[in-house]
């Protein structure tokens, strides 16, 4: 086992990078859940959609077109889903919601196959972010640092919005007690709609960001779904701190598990999840006390 500090710094950055990618995905899912008590299993499919849109736009207008427009496109999909399905499912139990979004996974999976085919797509890292920089004595790809920075920036922005703005206060009130929030004159429906669209946009952004790093395949949404769910269940549904904590735990356990005990890496995270569920069934940082 190599023990030089550069190796571990490199692995720590890898872990951080994975964590931030997961954070972009899980934050949307968890806030939607916290506010609307709605579990959107199709969140991963929206991420895949974001990646495909980004890949398609990148061939036309370059990476940044995809980067900025993919979230918009996915948010547009979110509007369609919200007004067509989600709004009507609000009062249904968790099972009905799980099933509707399960159906959506199926439908979106085949839609991407019909539009973009079965062959994996990929996009290049933009020239601005290509190459590597030297950091703590190690070479690290700029694009990965960009993902880490982007994750932290989004985290900071969301924390600020939640703490300091009126809409943030409304969201916090809604997560705490939606009936009360409605009594206070908050237009809960509109709040839900906005949060849902922002969540979708973030999923789309995660897809666009991941596309140059991974390959864009129809099943990428299914692959990322389980890690995302693990993140939000470990972190506690509905909270920003939970999403970031869960993402970091997942990223580090996965990365260092792969380094130290490759045979156990994938079982390890499930064992951790089971342990959290036994000790703290509501996750580490649940939105409600």
């Amino acid at each position, binding site marked *: 086992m*190599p023990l030089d500090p550069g190796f571990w710094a490199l692995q720590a950055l*890898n872990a951080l990078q994975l964590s931030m990618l997961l954070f972009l995905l899980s934050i949307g899912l968890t806030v939607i859940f916290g506010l609307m008590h709605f579990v959107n299993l199709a969140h991963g499919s929206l991420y895949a959609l974001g990646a495909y849109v980004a890949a398609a736009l990148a061939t036309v207008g370059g990476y940044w077109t995809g980067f900025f427009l993919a979230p918009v496109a996915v948010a547009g999909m979110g509007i369609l889903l919200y007004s067509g399905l989600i709004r009507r499912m609000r009062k249904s139990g968790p099972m009905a919601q799980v099933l509707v979004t399960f159906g959506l996974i199926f439908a979106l999976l085949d839609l991407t196959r019909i539009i973009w085919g079965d062959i*994996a797509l990929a996009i290049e890292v933009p020239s601005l972010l290509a190459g590597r920089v030297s950091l703590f004595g190690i070479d690290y790809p700029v694009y990965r640092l960009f993902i880490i920075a982007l994750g932290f920036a989004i985290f900071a922005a969301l924390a600020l919005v939640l703490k300091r703005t009126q809409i943030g206060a409304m969201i916090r009130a809604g997560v705490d007690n939606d009936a009360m929030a409605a009594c206070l004159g908050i237009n809960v429906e509109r709040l839900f709609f906005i949060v849902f669209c922002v969540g979708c946009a973030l999923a789309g952004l995660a897809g666009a960001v991941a596309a140059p*790093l991974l*390959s864009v395949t129809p099943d990428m949404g299914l692959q990322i779904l389980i890690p995302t769910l693990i993140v939000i269940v470990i972190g506690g549904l509905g909270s920003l701190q939970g999403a970031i904590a869960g993402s970091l735990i997942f990223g580090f356990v996965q990365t260092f598990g792969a*380094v130290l005990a490759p045979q156990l*890496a994938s079982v390890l995270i499930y064992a951790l999840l089971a342990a959290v569920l036994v000790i703290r069934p509501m996750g580490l940082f649940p939105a409600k006390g």
Partner: protein
Amino acid sequence: MKTTILAALGFATALSMPASAEEIKVGLLLPYSGVYAALSNDIEAGFELALEEYGAETEATFALLREDTEVKPPVALAKAKKLILQDKVDVMAGIVSSGVLGAVRDLVHGAGVPLIVANAGNDEATGAQCSPFITRMSFSNGQVNRPMGPWMVEQGITKVFTLAPDYAAGRQMIDSFTETFTAAGGEIVGQEFTPFQKTQDFGPFLAKAKASGAQAVYVFYAGGEAISFVKQYDSFGLKADLPLYGSGFLTSSLYVNAEGPAAEGVITALHYVPTIDNPENAAFVTAFEAKTGRIPSEYAVQGFDAARALIEATKTGATDRESLANALRQVHFEGPRGTLSIDPATNNIVQPIYVYETIAGEGGLTQKVLAELPATADPLNGCTMAPVSN
């Protein structure tokens, strides 16, 4: 139409249509949906192309029945039963994943239906699990990787780090490379198997490879994982100091354009690349492009040669299951991959292996063949079966 009218669905009992004496019913068993759909499309296109081009050489005519395995062994088994017992096909072809091959093996063997494997490469299928009815026209996992061991030592590379997904095929590919590489005097300085289809980020493993002190990295990845791997390998800047070698699926022509410049300079070995220089291949590439608009991949040539083998077998006058199986074991012909033959001891294909480098060409990435390593038959691997009857 995906399936023929013959496929009476649900519960209706199908009537077997009386076939004319020379019409041979061929069941194509491929995963049209699921992760291997792109592979299926190439195999099927290749298969059809061969029937169009060479079908006239034989008196037999062919009726194709297509079934989707969904890459699920239980589904594949049910579909295989349907083809064999209900549709009463004379011969089957296809099979992409080794799991599916393992699932249908006993059925095929028991029913005595010849099966031409057009992809699945697990060594056991032509080893301990071999059957006189199963002929493989694609490759075996060992076959593709074995020649690379001595070749790399010849190039002066003696310390290698290996990486592959953690499943049977990954282990077989790496193990067979390791075997010949160490026998030729090389040393494996590190070895990792990554969780199959669950590894999004290869960073942790790449850092290990970098720290291992190896001269080169030898890997097997395919499909989406291959794209992610090659791109991430390049993004860490490893290619310059630590050249990337591997099994040729890594930079298959099906995916290489998605990998982009990251794939340049990667050296791998495979049984087919579209740039092999021989007249059969030139004709095949032209015809395949005309038919599909794509450059043929190794999967396309596997489908193509599977149908070629079937045509060759029928030329001997074989029409029923038994005679077809027997004839398939003795097939040999010149194809896009060079001289091909079936080793009657294992029923695996004997074919040359091409070492190639992925380089930038005029219309995107292309393959430069560095060496043609001679064809050798696979070891028996515990295969015992009745000899060919004449």
